[in-house]
């Protein structure tokens, strides 16, 4: 019958004890003895110094709080143990030491033994490596988000350039045709006709000048607003309503809660004024009602500008915030302006970190409602400008 060979060097209990003391003394591990009532009765080794002898073990090792029943169950399962690997226990100080905790029942001594071991150097290195990998992944995610934002800004810029070149080139071309035409008219001696054409050229030049001024305003939004000030928004909106030209019995109603808040007054004025002005200009019936309503939320002032006018057709809803877009044609276009109002409003709202949306409406129904989210806490970058 084969028997297990005796070890070449049977461990000497005294040598084992000395080795144990040596390792514990080098701050590698500690042992805690715990009685049936889960009171720490003794400890050994510097790693167990944090345990208060004479008190429940959970007072010192808070990781065991809530696990008392599981610990007691070990008495019926001497081969079992509770293992909590790689745990950092923060005491009163913000400690960073990582422990492997191993708790088991020793039937011979009729007590629990808790082994507190310092997580190995390899484990510590692994943790640091993992931290660096995760940190890099998070940074990459942020870079990806910023890149997407930049790409969107570039696309916006390209779209903007395309719109501008198209919208300014068309009246320029018309002016060129008209001057050629004027030359022919003068050559033929039709002076009255020439005066009419000159008047048209003057009006188109003024319109182009207005477009360029509006473009200048559009491009400088966000750069020219500097001072935060305490604004009574109700007084501001009342002043806007009083200053707008209303005809045909149109009413402007101010509703909801308009608080006093620290914000940028000029851009807020621009936004509400343009939206209200648009609602008046595009109304098609006498006795129209324009509602200016506000509601304060913890982070933003929600502003609604609603009218009971003709509404915006679904095919035009996408384009309304683009520069130089008017939804009227022919003679009416001249009185409707150059189509920069909503573009200016959107860019102004975005420059303060807010948003604007055209709320959906049922097909064929009348009325338009714009909702502006005007942040109460303005972006830090804006305050620094």
């Amino acid at each position, binding site marked *: 019958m084969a028997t297990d060979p005796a070890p070449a060097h049977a461990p000497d209990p005294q040598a084992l004890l000395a080795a144990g003391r040596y390792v514990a003394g080098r701050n590698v591990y500690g042992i805690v003895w715990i009685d049936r009532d889960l009171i720490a009765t003794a400890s050994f080794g510097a790693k167990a110094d944090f345990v208060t002898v004479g008190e*429940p073990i*959970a*007072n010192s090792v*808070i*990781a065991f*709080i*809530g*696990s008392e*029943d*599981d610990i007691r169950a070990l008495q019926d399962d001497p081969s079992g143990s*509770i*293992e*909590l*690997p*790689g*745990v*950092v*226990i*923060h*005491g009163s100080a*913000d400690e960073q030491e*990582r422990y492997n905790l191993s708790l088991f029942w020793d039937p011979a001594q009729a007590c629990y033994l808790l082994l507190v071991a310092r997580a190995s150097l390899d484990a510590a290195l692994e*943790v640091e490596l*993992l*931290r660096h990998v*995760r*940190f890099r992944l*998070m940074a990459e995610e942020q870079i990806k988000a910023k890149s997407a934002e930049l790409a969107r800004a570039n696309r916006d810029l390209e779209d903007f350039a395309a719109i501008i070149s198209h919208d300014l080139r068309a009246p320029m071309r018309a002016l060129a045709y008209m001057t050629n035409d004027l030359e022919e008219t003068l050559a033929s001696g039709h002076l009255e006709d020439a005066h009419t054409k000159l008047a048209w050229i003057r009006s188109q030049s003024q319109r182009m000048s207005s477009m360029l001024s509006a473009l200048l305003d559009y491009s400088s939004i966000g750069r020219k607003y500097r001072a935060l000030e305490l604004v009574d928004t109700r007084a501001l909106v009342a002043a806007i309503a009083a200053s707008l030209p209303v005809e045909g019995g149109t009413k402007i109603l101010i509703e909801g809660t308009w608080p006093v808040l620290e914000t940028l007054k000029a851009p807020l004025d621009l936004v509400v004024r343009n939206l209200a002005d648009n609602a008046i200009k595009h109304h098609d019936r006498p006795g129209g009602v324009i509602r200016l309503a506000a509601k304060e*939320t*913890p*982070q*933003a002032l*929600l502003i609604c500008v609603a009218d009971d006018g003709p509404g915006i057709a679904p095919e035009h809803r996408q384009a309304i915030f683009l520069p130089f877009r008017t939804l009227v044609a022919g003679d009416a276009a001249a009185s409707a302006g150059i189509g920069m109002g909503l573009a200016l409003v959107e860019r102004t709202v*975005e420059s303060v*970190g807010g*948003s604007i949306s055209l709320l959906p409406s049922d097909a064929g129904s009348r009325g338009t409602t714009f909702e502006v*989210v005007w*942040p109460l*806490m303005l*972006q830090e970058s804006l305050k620094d400008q």
Partner: protein
Amino acid sequence: MSRARKVMLLGEIGVGKSSLARRLVFGRFSSEYKPTIGVEIYRHDIPAAALDGQPASLILWDTDGNFGDAIFRHIYIKQASAAVIVADKSRPDTIDAMLRLARGFAEVLPGRAIHFVINKDDLTVEDESAHVDGCVLAAPIQRESPIPLIRTSALTGTHVEQAFIATARAIFRRGH
């Protein structure tokens, strides 16, 4: 020792679980991002006046966000009395993860208190899905289950203590 209860801090990587724990326990915030590996345990004492007349301690198990749903099979989750599940206001995907973790926790430990925390409330978020009107953000969560939602900022400390006091009250109200 006062009444002590184990509370799991769950949520995706980088939502600010450790920052919340450190803000609560040590009253400070560090802008250095240091992902939690494994588990880190904190203790926070709540005075009697904030509860039902008796003091209590919360033992916060700040878990590695990388655990995902695997946390529910880990010994770390055993005997937890409640979960505070955190999402990042500026990352809508972390809100989906928050809902998933809530379902997992409710399955493993039914009847235990759960609180949702939307952290980084100091940020201005332009994304439509995280609209600044609180109701919009809360709506998809409230449809999922009637779990309380608290907005916090570990950076400024806003509502951090309130979130954990609410958790402690829910634990003792439920008797877990």
